[in-house]
């Protein structure tokens, strides 16, 4: 469970201070698919970074499964990111010197007891449809393939929460649809998803939808498709956590 308790993130001081996130207050329950919409510069990526513990709030607190990540030590926070969260960057964020398979395995390097291993990585690459490109370097992959590898990487340590920053932003319509289908399947499999996007067409995918404007968060009604297809229901896919 993610509890965001009135957080504010301010960049700069005095007259030049900018409240990128201004008193955001919401809760994400286990199994939720939360969508945060907003234009560029509205503060949604900052909010996501706050939830992921990449930056600390100026005010307020964020609790991940009861742990206040605003005050947690760097080591504790890093462990939480590696073990509990999967992060999908906006532009895939693959390391160019590693193959797709090795990129997927990167989060396992940060944990002594990482649940991920080579077999699971291959399974996940298969799950996202790029098993055949396991030994290819990112420079030889298409945008869609890179995004799939990044999703497989986010899932390698069997995280409870998947955080995605505009994961379909740079993809064509077909690939976007495929990626979103994949996210829905993951959500049905029990993974909590918090996704930032500027695309309102994705609203039907979510259980909770928020719109961000100038750092302020407003709840938006979820789409009808979500209510007829509740998350956490019968799973049509698993993430390979039994591998």
């Amino acid at each position, binding site marked *: 469970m993610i509890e965001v308790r009135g957080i504010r993130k301010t960049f700069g001081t005095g007259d030049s201070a900018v409240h990128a996130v201004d008193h955001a207050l919401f809760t994400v329950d286990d199994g939720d698919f939360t969508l945060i919409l907003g234009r560029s510069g509205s503060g949604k*990526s*900052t909010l996501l*970074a706050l939830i*992921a513990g*990449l*930056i600390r709030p100026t005010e307020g607190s964020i609790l991940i499964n009861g742990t206040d990540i605003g005050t947690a030590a*760097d*080591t504790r926070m*890093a*462990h939480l*990111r*590696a*073990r509990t*969260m999967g*992060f999908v*960057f*906006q*532009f895939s*964020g*693959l*390391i160019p*010197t*590693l193959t797709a398979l*090795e990129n997927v395995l*990167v*989060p*396992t*390097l*940060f*944990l*002594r007891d990482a649940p991920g291993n080579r077999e699971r990585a291959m399974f996940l690459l298969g799950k996202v449809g790029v098993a055949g490109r396991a030994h290819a370097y990112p420079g030889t992959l298409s945008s869609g393939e890179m995004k799939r590898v990044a999703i497989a*990487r986010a899932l390698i*340590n069997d995280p409870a929460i998947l955080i995605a920053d505009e994961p379909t932003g740079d993809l064509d319509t077909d690939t976007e649809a495929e990626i979103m289908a994949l996210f829905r399947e993951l959500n049905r499999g029990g993974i909590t998803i918090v996704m930032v996007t500027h695309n309102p067409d994705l609203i039907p995918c979510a259980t909770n939808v928020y719109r961000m404007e100038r750092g302020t968060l407003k709840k938006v009604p979820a789409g009808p498709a979500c209510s007829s297809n509740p998350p956490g229901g019968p799973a049509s896919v698993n993430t390979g956590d039994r591998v």
Partner: protein
Amino acid sequence: MREYPLSGLFMLADRNLRNRPARTIAVAATFAVIAASLFSAQYLMSGARQSLDNGLNRMGADLMIVPAEYATSGEDALLTGRPTTFFFQDGGFETIADIPGVARASPELFIGTLYGQACCAGPIQLIAIDPAHDFTISSWLKENPSVIMGKDDIIVGSAIAGDIGSDLRFYGHTFHIAGRLDRTGLSGVDMAVFTRIEDAYTMADESGIKAARKLSIPKGMVSAVLVRVSPGSDPQTVSGEIMNRVPGTKAISRAGLSGTVSERLKTTASLLYGSALVVTAVTIPLLGCVAVLIASERRRETAILRGLGASQSFVRNLFITESVLLTLAGACTGIGTAALFLVAFGDFIAISLKIPFTMPPAGSILTSMGVALCLPVISGIIATLYPAVQVSRADPYTVIREAGI
């Protein structure tokens, strides 16, 4: 406590180094030069000292008394095996033997042989001993009871050609090789032939008829007196007393020989140590700059790692691990190359520098390797530490936004 396995650090570090081969090779080569210079200097110093110890232990003497004007020749004869012939009044021997602090004294004759000996490329040093007083060859004979040194028998140094039992001719006189000393690395021993004084006189007497050039050994003269100091006596004090009582003599001591060797090695050692220090002094800030550039260039990668769950310590240690691997690879290459070169050309270097030389003991070699490894590795860590700490503390969110990740 470290929360991540080391294997991950090594895997990423290894990949990063391999991915930039030109830079990796250039930096590693610099550290190879540092390590090679350090190792070579220590190896040569250690080999020279070891050789001097071996040789002087074989001689069994604390002091060698020679005519003052031949002190340099005497040192050269011992250190480089360059043959020399000189004599001084035997009267000195009796006086020296009676000086307090002198446990034993042994007269010796130094005779340089002629060119064209079967055993050797050039003239060698013939050392004639007095079996009644000698403690150099006699102690060796005690260790090798099967060897008997009778009339016209010689004991040869390890570098003298000829099988035991075969004959060698000097000044037309035929000698019989009775035994061979172990290698010491001290040319004055390894390239010497030991005979008895009475056989040397016979050889000199016959040389007028049998040799191309007549050898004259004035009766009642010696070339040197080897002195073993009594336990508890100070060799320096005894040598001073000897030079007082027997004017015109000079005492060559262990410390003096070590000093001469150190002096001869000084230029080479200074050059090697100096170059290692200069390269290190230049490399640390240079590597620091390279590390800053690399850290800047890899901000995107480190931000991704942080976003995926790497702690600050992981990122910091990743940079330091790369530095350690790089410097280790360079240092190992440098030491390996230097070791091969020194093993192949050690004797040639020793001859060129006019120093005694033998392979140092394993412990000494390992110590030299350790020092030659440590300096580059520590330098590498020092140079990388600041950029590593800086990049690990960088705010990943800012980098992610700036880099458009």
